[in-house]
């Protein structure tokens, strides 16, 4: 089943912030496993995107990593801590999880109260809270909204508050389960820019689940799940440029990959790797000028 695997050297462990070993998971009452024999390492400081058709088990994998579902068989380590009942508090502190629906994860009656919610759960002292709330809101550019109620915020602003809530706990990994899919284009661009900033400037490891190929190309690596199996795991430009692989698993192609696909149908030889729009422009220019 596995078509490519560009993983970490087995046993090194120190660079992997999340490590999944032979994970199989079946929801109670289901006969078929939702995840079967998944093994993978997430290298620290990278942005990894999980893609896969509906029902392929993406959310289930993300929830298992955060200990939100009990593991049936196999092992998961987060920052070298085994994900188990007795470690859940430590796991939840190390992983910030942002969900799809901006409204259904806003717990507090105001922005500041919502950020405080996680701090209260992790028993951060009352004296330290204002500073940590301000710092987290500053990271997502929401300080002026601290006293606002959620009814006055846009979807994108609510998602940024959710990110602030995660950041306030000083996690190592941020998981986004289709966190931009309910946002308008502007809100989505802001959140995606913020993710890039958090990865590059603050060194967070990002695990994002996305249906949108234009989002999947933003990360360093891509994990492809289908029918409970890990189908491919490799560098973004390899997987997102492989139109055959993506189409076989009923996934959308990024714009430039679509373009290459059509060029190929017309008998033009194209580079195999994924190319960003700028790279594609340069390549097309070269082709056109060499034809003259």
């Amino acid at each position, binding site marked *: 089943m596995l078509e490519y695997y560009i993983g970490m050297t087995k046993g090194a462990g120190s660079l992997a912030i999340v490590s999944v070993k032979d994970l199989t998971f079946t929801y109670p009452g289901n006969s078929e496993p939702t995840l079967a024999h998944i093994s993978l390492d997430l290298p620290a400081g990278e942005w990894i995107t999980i893609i896969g058709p509906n029902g392929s088990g993406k959310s289930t994998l993300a929830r298992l990593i955060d200990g*939100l579902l009990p593991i049936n068989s196999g092992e998961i380590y987060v920052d070298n801590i085994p994900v188990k009942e007795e470690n859940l508090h430590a796991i*939840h502190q190390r992983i910030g999880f942002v*969900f799809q629906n901006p*409204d259904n994860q806003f*717990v507090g009656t105001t922005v500041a109260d919502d950020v405080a919610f*996680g701090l209260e*759960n992790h028993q951060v002292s009352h004296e330290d809270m204002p500073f940590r709330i301000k710092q987290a809101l500053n990271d997502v550019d929401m300080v002026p909204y601290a006293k606002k109620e*959620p009814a006055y915020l846009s979807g994108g602003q609510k998602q940024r508050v959710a990110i602030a*809530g*995660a950041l306030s706990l000083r996690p190592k990994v941020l998981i986004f389960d289709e966190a931009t899919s309910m946002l308008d284009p502007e809100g989505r661009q802001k959140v995606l820019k913020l993710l890039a900033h958090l990865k590059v400037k603050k060194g967070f490891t990002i695990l994002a689940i996305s249906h949108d190929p234009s989002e999947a190309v933003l990360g360093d690596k891509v994990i492809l799940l289908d029918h409970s199996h890990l189908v491919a795991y490799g560098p973004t430009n390899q997987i997102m440029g492989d139109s055959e692989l993506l189409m076989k698993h009923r996934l959308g192609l990024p714009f430039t990959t679509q373009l290459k696909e059509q060029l190929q149908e017309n008998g033009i030889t194209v580079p195999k790797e994924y190319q960003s729009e700028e790279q594609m422009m340069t390549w097309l220019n070269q082709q056109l000028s060499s034809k003259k």
Partner: protein
Amino acid sequence: MNSKVFFGLYVPTNSILHRLDPRMKIIACFWYVVIVFLANNVLTNVLLGLFLLFLIWLSKVSLKMYWQGIKPLMWVILLTAAVQLFFSTGGQPIWQWHFLNITSLGIIQSIYLIFRFAFIITISTVLTVTTTTLQLAAGIESLLKPLSYLKVPVSQLAMMLSIALRFIPTIMDEIQTIMDAQRARGMDFSAGNLFQRAKRLVPVMIPLFVSSFKRADDLALAMEARGYQPGAPRTAYRQLRWHMNDNWAFLTYVVLTVALIVLRQI
């Protein structure tokens, strides 16, 4: 969004009453309601009335707001007073018709009754115009804290209350959206008798229930991911502070109560 109905009549004038500890205000409101029933003569009622006017003045909120608190309950007050007037016995009989009768004592008692009602409604309005729902919830939680020794899950109940307050506007918005969607399909919510109108709300309630369960599911997961464990110890971001002014307010109430007891004897 019609959140006003649910969020009381909070008026942010930042008066001295606004800045009192919500626990003091809740206790004071409660105590005032108790002593209203101790007022038995003209002097005691005048005392309570003047005290209330003093609070209204302190709150810097216009009398109109207070009148709006009483207005919707006017009929209830008058009806109760009428029952008191026509059915009470004792004192000098003034007028009689079959089983109805008016006595001098009945008149006096129904007047007191009207005052009692007005006092109770107004003191509650003083509380709600000067205190946000959030502060009220925090105050109630703090006052109920001793019950946790009796294994009452006070902090979980408080969490439920604060989540309910947080989601009321969201759910109101959703009702609006669903109703608009139904209206776009030609549904008229205002026509017909009460039964027909209630029946038309069924296609609004069902999607609302479905989405609320989904919401609750999502919210529970998000809370768990952020480290919430029901019953586990937590720290508090919002802490109530008892200031010097709260002591003065307390003292004022002690004086009021003593004065009332003295005036009762006269």
